[in-house]
């Protein structure tokens, strides 16, 4: 029944009937439910938008940011930036807080899972600007913030907070000792 309701909701939403693929140069990620989408929007702090609990500069990348789409006033939620590195979009959008922008990327729609107006942002530019900014700064910003974690391998293998979590609770969260037999068995 929940799926039926979600599908009805999607059909009833005029926003979903719109196609934002015109002019998009978004690269495919070959995801189920992806569709290229290029549109104009205002960058907003979602918590502020919902509750009135606002922060200076939209939190400077610490809060989730949304895209209030100009064409239909739909709030699009960018979950992901352009890097294939387990990285979000807030840091990419933060410099554009409160600005009117144009974005290009992939909308993710999956009624079965409740995914509506979920977005992967690939590039951004302030309205009127000719140059795009690629939404791939996250790992560089992480490196600046974590100079002590410099080394080989991807950021998520070197991040001090993640390493501390794994040291304390293991890779499965069940405890390093408790998961030892599983890991030994898995790699046999």
């Amino acid at each position, binding site marked *: 029944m929940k799926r039926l309701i979600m599908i*009805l*909701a999607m059909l009833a939403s005029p926003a979903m009937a719109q196609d934002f693929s015109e002019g998009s140069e978004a690269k495919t990620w070959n995801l189920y439910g992806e569709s290229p989408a290029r549109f104009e929007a205002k960058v907003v702090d979602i918590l502020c938008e919902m*509750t009135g609990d606002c922060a200076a500069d939209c939190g400077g990348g610490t809060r989730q940011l949304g895209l209030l789409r100009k064409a239909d006033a739909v709030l699009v939620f960018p979950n992901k930036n352009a890097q294939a590195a387990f990285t*979000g979009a807030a840091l990419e959008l933060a410099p554009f807080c409160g600005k009117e922008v144009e974005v290009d990327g992939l909308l993710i729609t999956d009624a079965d899972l409740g*995914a509506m107006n979920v977005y992967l942002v690939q590039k951004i530019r302030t309205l009127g600007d000719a140059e795009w900014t690629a939404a791939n700064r996250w790992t560089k910003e992480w490196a600046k913030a974590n100079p002590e974690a410099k080394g080989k391998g991807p950021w998520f293998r070197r991040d001090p*907070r993640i390493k501390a979590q794994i040291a304390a609770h293991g*890779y499965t969260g069940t405890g390093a000792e408790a998961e030892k037999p599983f890991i030994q068995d898995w790699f046999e």
Partner: protein
Amino acid sequence: MRIIAMSLCLLVSGAFGAQASEGERIQIKGEIIDTWCYYSGVMGGPEAVTGSAHHTCALWCSAGGIPVGLLAEDGTVYMVLKIEGDANSAGGDTQLNLASHEITADGMLYQRDGLNYLVVEKVVTDHGITNLNHEDYGPIPGFAIPDPTQ
């Protein structure tokens, strides 16, 4: 039934595309998940991107600033904007410490354009990691656990 009622309410009121709705106080039990892997299917079906099988990836995504969600027992996902006063929803410590945990949360629900947004005022109970599915699925993604023999 609550979801049906709320969805019908949205349809009737034409709230999709409208301004933010009023918050509703709710209490929900569910798992703190990483929403990108769940919604995008990038690593497979929804059962595989939850629980202990996906715990390391959930840490990576939470620390990486991907939004966390609360996956309720009925399958509804609530995008978490704040937890007990911590509004650092893009990589914050509070949500990182709760990755893959099942919690009972008391807070305010907001709905907009097909998504549910949750401001957790109190984690009533932290049940810990209860979805022990790593034996069934192995680590998701497969490289989440480094090969100790390498």
